[in-house]
């Protein structure tokens, strides 16, 4: 299966990127495995939240022509020999059916949605094994005050200025990260949306 762009993750960042790209006439596929942290914690009461409930957001994207794979996730990727380009990816449900696209958006979120996975000795990004910024000393992952900003919230994938993911020090030229999967200051909802938009704009410049 071939698309212009494959978006991995159906939360606030992934949906925003897919929306912008589909609006520009691109052929987009979006993989939305489960609830994002944003969607899992948003109260159902406000009209804004209802408009962005995971179901209505994904349905709206489908109506715009995005191919939405609900309950499926990208589990593996093939890179070019020099490691600078994503050639194809594979999903859990589609097995060995290669999924090809010009560009990819990594919007898998952080720990809750398993965009970044932690274990006793460290953290990793499970789809591309991208470079992840984190604190090697576990004693510095948290602040003893529950209500203080927590260092673990800053962990995430490294990117260049254009938001392209880095693996083994090499920039992957067609893989853009958006949303909470990014390393650095935790993003507000608005920040997540604008990072999704930014990834889409970068992609449209080049791909």
């Amino acid at each position, binding site marked *: 299966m071939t698309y212009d762009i494959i978006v991995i993750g159906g939360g606030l960042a992934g949906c925003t990127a897919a929306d912008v790209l589909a609006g520009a006439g691109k052929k987009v596929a979006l993989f939305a495995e489960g609830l994002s*942290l944003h969607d*899992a*914690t948003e109260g159902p009461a406000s009209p804004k939240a209802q408009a962005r409930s995971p179901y209505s957001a994904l349905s709206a994207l489908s109506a715009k022509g995005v191919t939405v794979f609900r309950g499926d996730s990208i589990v593996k990727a093939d890179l070019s020999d020099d490691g600078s380009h994503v050639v194809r990816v594979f999903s859990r449900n589609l097995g060995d059916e290669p999924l090809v696209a010009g560009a990819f958006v990594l919007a898998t979120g*952080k*720990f*809750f949605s*398993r965009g970044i*996975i*932690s*274990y*006793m000795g460290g953290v990793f990004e499970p789809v591309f094994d991208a470079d992840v910024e984190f604190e090697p000393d*576990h*004693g510095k*992952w*948290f602040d*003893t*005050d*529950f*209500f203080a900003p*927590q260092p*673990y*919230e800053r962990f995430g994938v490294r990117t260049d200025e254009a938001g392209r993911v880095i693996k083994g020090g090499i920039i992957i030229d067609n893989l853009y990260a958006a949303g909470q999967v990014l390393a650095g200051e935790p993003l507000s909802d608005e920040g997540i949306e604008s990072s999704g938009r930014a990834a889409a704009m970068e992609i449209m410049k080049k791909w």
Partner: protein
Amino acid sequence: MFLENSSKEYDVIIIGGGITGAATARDCALRGLKTLLVERGDLCDGASGRNHGLLHSGARYAVTDPEGARECISENRILRRIASSCIDPTGGLFITLPEDSLEYQEKFIKACRDCGIDAEAITPEEALRLEPAVNPRLIGAVKVPDASVDPFRLVDANILDAVRHGADVIKFRAVTGFLKENGDVRGIVLGGSSIRARQVVIAAGIWSAHLAELGGAHIDMMPSKGSLLIFGHRLTRMVINRCRKPGNADILVPGDVVSVLGTTSDKVPFEDCEDIRATGDEVSLLLQEGINLVPELSTTRIIRAYAGVRPLVVADKAASGRNVSRGIVLLDHELRDGIKGLITITGGKLTTCRLMAEMATDLVCEKLGLKIPCTTAEKRLPGSKVRKSGKDPVHKRAAVGRHGSEADIMDFNAKGAGEIICECEQVTRAEIEYSVKNLGVRSISDLRRHTRVGMGTCQGSFCISRVAKVLAEVLGTPDKADELVKDYLQERWKGMSPVLWGDTLREAEYMHKVHRK
């Protein structure tokens, strides 16, 4: 009854609301003494609430401390009878691994039998059939009558019995000094007020050293920190021990639906006792050793890590905590230091709490010139009364499991009483109301100790706002709900942060998103 202050004069005041103080208050009250128990925080807030929850058979001590082992097996049998609702008679298994020695196992079995502890050697195959999760490399196993005990329930039951026999309890008030006349202790000082009594018993765990100092006596104590891990599943039916000389992380105790692994043993300074936390190094050490007992621990979610302080009394100049006496220490300060009216009971174990109380109360009675026999070994504790058989309604069953016959005095008929407030542990509004009324609960952390609210796998993420609202209503301070939540989350964070990875970090990220505004 639970009081804020008291102007009565008592026969005996007991300082400390842990298991030793609670059991002593019960014994004194059952013997008809006018009794007051004072606790600076909530009940069971020290080492009594920060341990394995293991009802020792004595087997662990049979080789090294036969006297302690005999006390354990005798008290084990008594508590099974009088505190049945607090105890899960799991049995225990002492496993021998290739790096241990079967010679030690032989010595161990003989030592157990000499102390009157049933110890039956079984084959490794039989052990794996009983407990499929134990290390399959084992070369020997011994069955002993260990059990799992809920220390929170055991303290509650003792306090309830004391109160129902006329004792008073003051919580959240610290003893700041003693009333003294001619060098003798005549009561206690609580900040601005004082309360008179004919005898004062210090039963404050590691804090006994400080209190004795206030009373003019010196006890050489050594705080020994023990850290433990709680795993999110019950991996074994029985208590699993290593059959070797006692060491780190060699006991796994199943409790309700979780497993508790411990402990470490390290000398710490007194100032650390106020805010004791498990460290990353201790977590690593526990895991490293624990997987030798049950290999599956390496892939099981750790819900939290916590630590308590053993009140060891220094009998010699031993350097590490494990060799210093863990036996019962009863100090008659009149005889020892010339201070009339003051007694200290400390050391000992959770398993021997009733015996410690009997010894302390015997001494109190002797000082008061009374000869009243102890009946605590015969009388069943509240909650452990025999219940009429019959089917309980679904929403009442979790409460029956936790509180035994006490669930029968909870009001499940009132409107909304059966509403489930905490899903993980199936805590209902009726149980919360009961705890506030009978146990002087003020915060969600207190409520947790008495009902297990928020102790399940979600650690309160989902239910805590609801719990706070109900608790604030029952307390009559509906505007305090937010404060209750904040206080509780800080406390949960203390135990979650040392094990912040995997699913526990996923949970934490969710918790922060929901509760930190």
